[in-house]
């Protein structure tokens, strides 16, 4: 259980982590600059269990993997959005932040108490449940392996 951090459409990776912080690789340190200048309270207040809830095209722009890493460092395990930009989607899966598609994110309020049930594929917000679309089969293989690093290790040892 955590709070929903509500965002709109086209949230770009420059907003998630500005260009001047890209020499940093530590997720916690990146998290201290997450949404700097656009959502100031996020870095200070986000905590484990919180969920990002957004509109269309979340994570558009740069291929910087620092973006999902910054969210991971802030304790975000799930991003629930109407749709995702392609590179962010893959980066998020690879780094262990699950991007989940939900057409109903408009109905979820900022600050709502939220909980993601992956097994039954829904997000619960202020006691209401909204269905999540399944993760594509080929991406699920990477998720089940524990991320692309673990997947690669399995392959490397074959």
């Amino acid at each position, binding site marked *: 259980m955590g709070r929903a951090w509500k965002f709109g459409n*086209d949230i*770009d990776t*420059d*907003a998630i982590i*500005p*260009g*001047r912080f*890209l*020499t*940093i*690789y530590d997720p916690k340190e990146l998290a201290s600059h997450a949404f*700097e*200048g*656009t959502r100031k309270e996020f870095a200070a207040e986000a905590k484990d269990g919180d969920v990002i809830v957004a509109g*269309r*095209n979340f994570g*558009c*722009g*740069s*291929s*910087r*993997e*620092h973006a999902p890493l910054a969210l991971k460092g802030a304790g975000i395990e799930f991003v629930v959005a109407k*749709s995702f*930009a*392609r*590179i962010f989607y*893959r*980066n998020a899966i*690879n*780094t262990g932040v699950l991007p989940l598609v939900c057409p109903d994110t408009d109905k979820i309020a900022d600050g709502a108490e939220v909980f993601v049930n992956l097994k039954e594929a829904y997000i619960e917000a202020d006691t209401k449940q909204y269905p999540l679309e399944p993760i*594509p089969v*080929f991406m699920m293989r990477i998720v089940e392996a524990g*991320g*692309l*690093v673990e997947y*690669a*290790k399995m*392959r*490397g*040892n074959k």
Partner: protein
Amino acid sequence: MGLTITEKIFSAHCKKECRAGDVVMAPVDGAMIHDITGPLAINVMKEMGGGSVFDPKKVIMLFDHQIPADSISAAENHVMMRKFAREQGIYNYDIKEGVCHQVVPEKGCVKPGDIVVGSDSHTCAYGALGAFSTGIGSTDMAYVLKFGELYFRVPDTIQINANGKFQNRVGPKDLILTLAGDIGADGATYRALEFCGNAFSEMDIPGRMTCANMAIEMGAKAGIVPPDEKTWEYLRGRTDCTPFSLASDEDAKFFEKRDYDVSKINPKIAVPHNVDNVVDVTEVAGKQVDQVFIGSCTNGRYEDFVEAAEVLGDNVFSEDVRVIMVPASKAEYMKVLKAGLIEKFVEAGALVEAPCCGPCMGGAFGLLAPGEVSLSTSNRNFRGRQGSTESFVYLSSPATAAASAITGVITDPREV
């Protein structure tokens, strides 16, 4: 049923028929890493078990975003990457050649029909040469460095048919901004754009690079121009490949086809804070600008500076504007230099910097203060992209940028 260019490229690489929607493991012909996303890819490759890269000759390394090192941490990243290059036998262009998406094609590292990946979102630029090229993250890149292949979902294709002749001082950037405005920031997500019609067959390679570069701004995975005589001419002396034909079949299945008459396109500008916020320049004409940046992988080539010089004529740049010009590569810089344009620009009041990404991503230099306005020939105007989140970035062609740099306000280049 026939195949699109994208389906043909994947079919050839996977040695089986690949259709849009198929998920395939495809070998790559090239993998590019730079100073921002490279160190993370190298670290992750070590986490994956390290070892040797799949083929050092197919790995392209260069530094362009933070050069010469603008901080101690950037310098440390450069040192780490140089060490990796030496250990792995990878040729490292280091800080000496310029911006990745200019240098990769220039050095002959990409040819029609290739699959090339880069840990930079604008890697789609190499579609200008008829390759399928796309941007990936650092962990995907680590996987590529180790195994030489990667998962792809073969995208379906939106075919753009652009015909007609551009008006004077209107060109490829105005066309691609028009497309971004129409298709939207996510209208081509998970799709490839294919650029056809006589507007593209008559367009030079630099113009095609401008268009393919910005495919990602519509969410596209790739933006491909079918190779033609201009492509092979560009590649002559850069690669040893022999010309072959590569085009979508007439009966290929497209997601959508869109037609454009480029003669009807006016100078365009993307207004803050999204690339698809596109209007005619005349709609925002008169807006005061503090900084003009001409450069980047989108518009930092010799032809872009010639266009700027033609607009400049015998004028000088406004005293109230900081004009920063950055040719995209050493080769482009030398062409601009030998044509006498650097002298002309400096005398007119511009700063001409050595090849690098420059102010495009708000990292190395040329950052904006709160309230400041930048007009830039680069590809992104997200809030905070070039500095303060309270600053404003507009995107335009080099002609519009040069015209505005003279007057100090956003100006239609046809009026200068």
